[in-house]
């Protein structure tokens, strides 16, 4: 292992690695540029390097960009990456209360710690976990999708009915476009742009970014972005950050484990991990009512989980050659290009490389801390600019960011449409994040449900009879029944 560290700290690995990590901060903090996109963009640059240098660039970039997504989420309410969608809930609320600096430092420290725990878990438990996930079939993935959706009910503050309306809206939007099973274009109304479906990134940028600008222009109250974006200038003592982290060490521990486990499930990455960890933290918190109003736990849980998930996503990728998320899907492609065949044999034939990957993953956390700090400083200058300049900046970066995903002007229109929709949804107190969750999980739920039904000749019973499926179904039922049962038992105890 020491040899591995010596190799990865040689200049030909270290220099591109650090540069990629610095680029990651930038990509993460730019709405519309995702970690996946960043990785996809640097892979062509890595082909002429040693495999470990290329893999170090990819690993490092993914860690910094997932953290940096929280910077605009906290200060502008625009998630920089999908995994920061949850960070807008409490991070931005903390910023509005003048505690933005504490929120972002918590993000940085917890991202680093979460990333570290995720990597340690990757190193220690990877084979067992991957074997378990490999047993999953369509039935289990269907329940897993529903479990993800049920988190939105937990996340929502206020009316549960409106939260569900928002979730179903997301699910409905996910059905737009070509139906994968039959090739039939659904709800496209002859529009060619709708055939490939509605990408969730422009939806997310519109709902959170543009709607906030509209709200700001329409209300002009202190409550909105104009007040918040510029408020935070005070510095936060690292000791204070560590004190807050010490207070919530249980949340950090549970979120790291949840993040890694979810990351290890093929197809579920940092974004879903952040949602689930947030929901779980709220469920188990002593102050669930504080969530969504600038709760420290609400900031800590998602940011810890999404970086921990990155370690998790490498578990199935390395052990079985199955991507844990889109980033590792690209990694697998890159590894094949380097002449490496991911799978159980890698651990035997390329033991050195595996150790080097672990060394890179561990050391990257230290660089996240340093580069993240520099990144926050750099962006704070942007936030101190006059309000109208910031508003114009958010607008143009949102519009161009949406265009950049698929070079489609239609996505620019989507940002505008969802910006207006988001504004009206907030007017009627309807939460925005469940819509995103529905949109992301919709295809996973629908495809697995339908393929499962085709396999069983339209029988639903087999969805319940497989052991892992059954456990998932029970957990799902408990998520909804937990509160009523708890209050029932409490009443019983009171009576007796």
């Amino acid at each position, binding site marked *: 292992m020491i040899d591995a560290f010596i190799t990865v700290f040689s200049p030909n690995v270290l220099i591109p690695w650090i540069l990629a990590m610095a680029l990651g901060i930038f990509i993460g903090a730019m709405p519309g540029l995702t970690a996946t996109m960043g990785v996809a963009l640097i892979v062509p640059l890595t082909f002429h390097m040693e495999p470990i240098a290329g893999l170090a660039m990819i690993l490092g970039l993914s860690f910094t960009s997932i953290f940096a997504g929280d910077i605009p989420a906290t200060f502008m309410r625009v998630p920089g990456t999908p995994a920061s969608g949850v960070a807008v809930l409490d991070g931005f609320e903390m910023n509005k209360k003048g505690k933005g600096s504490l929120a972002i430092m918590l993000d940085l420290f917890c991202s680093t710690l979460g990333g570290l725990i995720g990597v340690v878990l990757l190193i220690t438990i990877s084979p067992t976990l991957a074997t378990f996930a490999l047993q999953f079939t369509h039935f289990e993935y269907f329940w897993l999708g529903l479990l993800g959706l049920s988190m939105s009910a937990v996340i929502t503050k206020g009316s549960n009915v409106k939260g569900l*309306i928002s979730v179903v809206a997301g699910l409905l939007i996910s059905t737009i476009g070509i139906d994968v099973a039959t090739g039939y274009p659904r709800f496209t109304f002859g529009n060619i742009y709708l055939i490939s479906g509605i990408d969730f990134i422009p939806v997310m940028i519109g709902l959170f970014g543009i709607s906030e600008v509209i709200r700001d222009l329409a209300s002009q109250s202190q409550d909105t972005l104009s007040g918040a974006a510029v408020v935070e200038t005070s510095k936060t003592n690292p000791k204070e950050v560590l004190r807050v982290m010490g207070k919530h060490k249980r949340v950090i521990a549970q979120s790291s484990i949840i993040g890694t486990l979810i990351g290890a499930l093929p197809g579920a990455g940092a974004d879903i991990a952040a949602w689930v960890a947030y929901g779980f933290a709220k469920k188990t918190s002593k102050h669930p009512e504080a969530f969504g109003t600038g709760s420290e736990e609400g900031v800590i849980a998602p940011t810890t989980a999404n970086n921990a998930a990155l370690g998790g996503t490498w578990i199935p990728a390395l052990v079985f050659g199955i991507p844990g998320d889109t980033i590792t899907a690209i990694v697998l492609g890159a590894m094949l290009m380097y002449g490496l065949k991911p799978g159980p044999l890698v651990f035997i034939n390329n033991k050195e490389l595996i150790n080097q990957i672990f060394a890179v993953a561990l050391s990257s956390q230290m660089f996240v801390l340093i580069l993240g700090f520099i990144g926050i400083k750099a962006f704070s200058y942007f936030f101190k600019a006059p309000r109208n300049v910031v508003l114009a900046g958010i607008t143009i970066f949102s519009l161009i960011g949406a*265009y950049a995903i698929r070079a489609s002007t239609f996505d620019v*229109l989507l940002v505008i449409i969802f910006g207006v929709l988001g504004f009206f949804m907030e007017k009627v107190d309807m939460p925005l994040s469940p819509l995103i969750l529905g949109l992301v999980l919709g295809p996973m739920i629908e495809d697995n449900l339908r393929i499962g039904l085709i396999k069983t000749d339209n029988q639903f019973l087999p969805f319940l009879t497989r052991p892992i499926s059954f456990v998932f179904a029970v957990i799902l039922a408990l998520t909804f029944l937990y509160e009523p049962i708890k209050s029932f038992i409490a009443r019983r105890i009171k009576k007796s």
Partner: protein
Amino acid sequence: MKVTREHTVGIVCIIIAVTILLITPSFPAGQEGANLTGPAFFPNVLAIAYILLGGLQLFLAFKSKPKRNNNNIKQSSKKDPQQLKRIITTLEYIALMVGFFAFFKPLGFIISTILFLFLLMWLLGVKWWKSLLISLVYTAIIYLLFGMLFTIGLPAGILSVVGL
């Protein structure tokens, strides 16, 4: 009985659900004619869920006492000279974005972005020369970042003649 925002949410849900249920019968059937696996199955389930949720929302809206609403009406009935101005600014902002969308391809990234940012900041009350300067800076940053560094094909539009 006054229709409030709460009622509107329920009504909109039901309208969307009914529209979906009117469209989906035109979808083809699933494997071996089974409806459970066809493309209409999932949207139909969601539409039914929307009818139930919309109904529940309406029920809750009727059940809740309109006490708070009276206060709202009183508040909003107060003449606010600033309010109309803000609504107009908001509409202008949305119109500017739609204009940007429409002219992005034909005019090209550089011209449409400079124009859009200049007009937007001017609308928000920034001095014209400042607006122009900041528009140029923003456009340059985005061009360098997205266009040069990440080689995303930003439309050249009418500037394509000069090779930009």
